[in-house]
């Protein structure tokens, strides 16, 4: 078992209600929930792998594929929708050649949609890694992507 996972388990008791916090920590550590991680969690918490997949696939936060070097999140909250967020997502899908939820083959970007980043007054917004870019347009976004390698 990887040391990192052991370190996570040490922080949590062996109780089924600790499953979600453990999954969150695993994702923070590895970037995604790998099948091996699920196996380890299953042994530790003594609940089936199926059950863990059932819970983790229910929540939007968890991903099961490796993330890209940069994560793009397009906000599709109401305010962003009204101001053209969907057009931004379409443009990204076209330009990167991937669908929402996927990672580019060169692992440069992964693309996701979020329901609301809570910056509605600055819509439409796009988040790349930890930075939030406000009042985006198709052309500005296209220029912005060039800054990320």
């Amino acid at each position, binding site marked *: 078992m990887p040391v990192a996972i052991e370190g996570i388990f040490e922080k949590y008791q062996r109780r089924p209600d600790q499953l979600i916090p453990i999954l*969150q920590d695993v994702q923070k550590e590895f970037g995604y929930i790998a099948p091996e991680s699920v196996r380890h969690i299953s042994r530790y918490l003594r609940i089936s792998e199926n059950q863990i997949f059932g819970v983790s696939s229910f*929540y939007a936060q968890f991903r099961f594929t490796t993330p890209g070097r940069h994560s793009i999140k397009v906000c599709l909250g*109401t305010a962003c929708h009204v101001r053209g967020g969907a057009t931004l997502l379409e443009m990204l899908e076209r330009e990167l050649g991937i669908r929402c939820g996927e990672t580019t083959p060169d692992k440069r970007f992964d693309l996701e949609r979020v329901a609301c*980043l809570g910056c509605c007054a*600055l*819509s439409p917004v796009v988040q790349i890694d930890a930075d939030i870019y406000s009042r985006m347009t*198709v*052309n500005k976004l296209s220029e912005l992507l060039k800054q990320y390698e």
Partner: protein
Amino acid sequence: MNKLKKKISEAKRKWEKIEDNKEPIIYVGAASCGRAAGALELITETDRFIQENNVSARLIQVGCIGPCYLEPLVDIKMPGQPRISYSNVNIGLLSKILKSHLIEGTPFSKAAIGNFSNDTFMDIPPFFELPMLKPQMRIVLRNCGLIDPEDIDHYLAKDGYQGLMNALQTSPEDVIGVVRQSGIRGRGGAGFPTFKKWTVCRNTPGEQKYLICNADEGDPGAFMNRSLIESDAHAVLEGMMIAGYAIGASKGIIYIRAEYPLAIERLKKAINQMKEYGLLGKNILGSRFSFDVSIKEGAGAFVCGEETALIASIEGKRGAPRSRPPFPAISGLFGCPTIINNVETLGTLPNILRNGADWYNRIGKEGNRGTKTFSLVGKIRRTGLIEVQLGTTLREIIFDIGGGVQKPFKAIQTGGPSGGCLSEEFLDLAVDYESLASAGSIMGSGGLIIMDEDTCVVDVAKYFLDFTQKESCGKCIPCRVGTRHMVEILDRITHGEGVPEDLLTLRTLGDTIKKGALCGLGQTAPNPVLTTLRYFRNEYLEHIRDGRCRAVVCKDLIEYRVIKEKCTGCQSCVRVCPTGAISGPRSEPHNLDVTKCIKCRSCYEICRFEAIAGDAIVIRTAEKRS
């Protein structure tokens, strides 16, 4: 208790030093929205400026004061002068402001929007007299943007934890009595009287009871709870303690969205400070009340805002709701009596316990007491976080506070995806739980989205339903299958493939889902469709009958055109077109091949941006296809 009183007098002295400052203070609004607008860069730049010019000044990070459209906000308070607020500050403007105000001592009046005294100061009006703020009544938001949310002393100096001290001096039953008398109703959306829930929980025997703060603010377009926690976390925590004392809970849990990292960080800091000050733990302030608070991060599921789903999620399960009864107040988390209160309800409690039930009962209107916070967004001039008395009309909110719309007003959506879309005729409707319900909408958690004539209501209804459909947990059939069918029908309509019978089907489906769904998510999901069908029927008919979208939003019903007379042939659009749909030599009007056009908007944006070309590219509704 005495130890805290000592801390309070220390805190008050500390606050007086800020009020009566000897050296300049610079305030930067650095909640999430301010940060998105660039507040962090301003902080770095200010620090650099202070060091470079060798000025002695203090920088305080405050939360969100409300008018998001003015972000980022930087305030400066010189000794002996009121605090002056500057809006829409960028790096260039900041150095001008700092130079003028900090070094030369004269406010940079061009960018100043308000001062924090009661009078006009050097032609700068009082901040709270500005049109957006004047009609508001700030109770929950009273400290937001004014204090440093990461410093418990600031909160204490503003009479923080006074409500808790008052509560601890009476019995839990008396606290419930005060809350009953105040008339406050749950601010999470449904408006259930807070005291009723509490009484049931209080009277249910149980060794262990839980108090949960619901900060799973999932409504797209709503950010009131995030702003409150980021700007005044202690108010929410104090509210939790009062509630915990009243119902007899010794454990408090904050269930908060993982998408709010700053709010989580501030809560963690606040909890540590409370421990330091003896406000958490065993026998708090020498009473018999013991209380602890922990934080649970949500993992991204809208349905977890529903009480029973939230409980399932904390228990480590899929966030699926269950049928009630038993209500959580009798059997909730791990089978123990549990009360779940919304962030805003909890944030209001300290004020009620501090100022008394009679004070609160005079605010608002009969049956709808107190204030409500709203996030005002969409196609409106002044966006932001506001707080008004219940009973204020939509017109006052949109036009007096929000400054109206730039293009003709079309609709207002209250209550997020669970609410309804109201047309112009409802502008004089009072915002209270019953009036909104009678119009087919709901109060909801407080998102207000304004739409103008550029917004297609069919598209918006589809957007909301698509959202709830994706967030449906799939447990009950009306919600899982019904919303799916509704989305499919709406999708057809927006593609110009609708048939007149669709409208009746939508209504029947909507009514059935409302009656048959298990939880609040399903029961309210059809609201946006049902209200738009009622108030904007013509727009649906235009989509179906004429294949026309008057707001030019629905992609299949619109086309892009070059106006030859206006086109200067500057080639900007040719360069950005990803599919080569636009062609033509330089200096000659361009051609746009509609069969190649994917309507990505690139050319439209660049054409409006390049001043020479002007608005040569237009989007218009297409002719009806045969």
